[in-house]
C-alpha cells in the first residue's frame, strides 16, 4: 500500500474478525469435504492442501501484516517455501526411485 513509511498499518477490528471468520469457514469446508464428500485420490489431497494454502495466505497477509509490510519480509517467506520445495523434491527423487525400500523403514 502507498502509506507513508513512518506509519504502521493498523487493521480495524472488523478486518481482523473478517479474516478469522474466513478461516473458521474454510476449516469447516475442509472437514466437510474430507469427511462427507468422497473425492477420488489424488484430488482429495490436492483439495485439502489448496484450502490450507488459502488459509495460510490469509494468516500471512493479514494477521502477520505482510500485505502492508516491506516486501523484503514477503521475499523471505517465499525463499523459505522455495527451499522447502527444493528439499522435498531432491529427497523424493531418491526415495521414489529405489528398487528396495530400506528394510524396517
Amino acid at each position, binding site marked *: 500500500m502507498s502509506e507513508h*513509511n*513512518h506509519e*504502521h498499518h*493498523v*487493521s480495524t*477490528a472488523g478486518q*481482523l*474478525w473478517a*479474516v*478469522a471468520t474466513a*478461516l*473458521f469457514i474454510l*476449516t469447516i469446508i*475442509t*472437514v466437510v469435504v*474430507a*469427511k462427507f464428500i*468422497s473425492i477420488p*485420490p489424488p484430488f*482429495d*489431497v490436492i483439495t*485439502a*492442501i489448496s*484450502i*490450507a494454502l488459502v*488459509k*495460510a495466505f490469509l*494468516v*500471512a497477509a493479514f*494477521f*502477520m501484516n505482510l500485505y502492508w*509490510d*516491506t516486501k*523484503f*519480509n514477503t521475499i*523471505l*517467506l517465499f*525463499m*523459505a*517455501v522455495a*527451499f*522447502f520445495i527444493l*528439499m*522435498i523434491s531432491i*529427497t*523424493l527423487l531418491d*526415495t*521414489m526411485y529405489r528398487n528396495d*525400500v530400506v528394510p524396517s*523403514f
Partner: protein
Amino acid sequence: MANHSTSHPTHVQHHFVDSDQQFDTAKLGMWVFLVNEILFFGGLFCAYIVYRAWYPELFQMAALELNTFWGAVNTVVLIGSSLTVAMAIRSAQKNQMKGLKINLLITIALAVVFMVIKGFEYAHKFELGIFPGDFYTYEGLDHPQANVFFGIYYMLTGVHALHVLIGIGLIFWIYLRARKGEFNSEYYTPVEITGLYWHLVDLIWIFLFPLLYLIE
C-alpha cells in the same frame, strides 16, 4: 562517538537511527528466524511426504485412529488465539492498554485449551499402547509399519506442542511487561514480534490438521 540526540525516545537503542528503523530491523530479524522455523518443520513434513508416498494405505488406516472432531476444535481454538493476538497488537497500536492485556490473557487461555485437548488425545493413545517407535504395542492396526505413522505423528505434533508451550511463556512475559506499562503506541515491538511467532505456530497447525487428521 556519535552525538546522542536528546530527542530520541528512551526505547530507541543508540545504534538505530530512529524508532522506525529499530522496529523494521526487529521484524526482519524475526522473519529470518521464522524462515529457519519453516525449514525446521519442513524436515519433519519431508519425512511425512516420503513415508506417505511409500505407504499410502498405512496413512489412510492410521488417520482413522485420530479424532477429527477434537482436531477440528483445536484448529478453531488456534485460529481464535491468532485473532486475539492480532487484536492485542491493534490495542497496543491504539494505546489501549486494557485491551492489550485482556487480549493477551485470552490468547494464553486459548493456548492452554489447545494443550489440554492435545493432552487428552495423547493420553487416549497411550492407553491403547500407541507409543512412538519401538514402544508401539497397539494391535488394532494391521500394518507392519504402523509405528512409523505414529512416530511421524508424535514428532510433528510434539514439536508443534513444544512451540505452543514456548508461545504461552512468551505471551505471559509480554503480558507482565504490558502490566508494568512498558508498551504504548510508539513502542510495541515485542508484542508485534511475539505475535509473528504465534501466527507461525497457527500456520503450521493449519497444515498439520488436514495432513494428519483428514486422510480418508
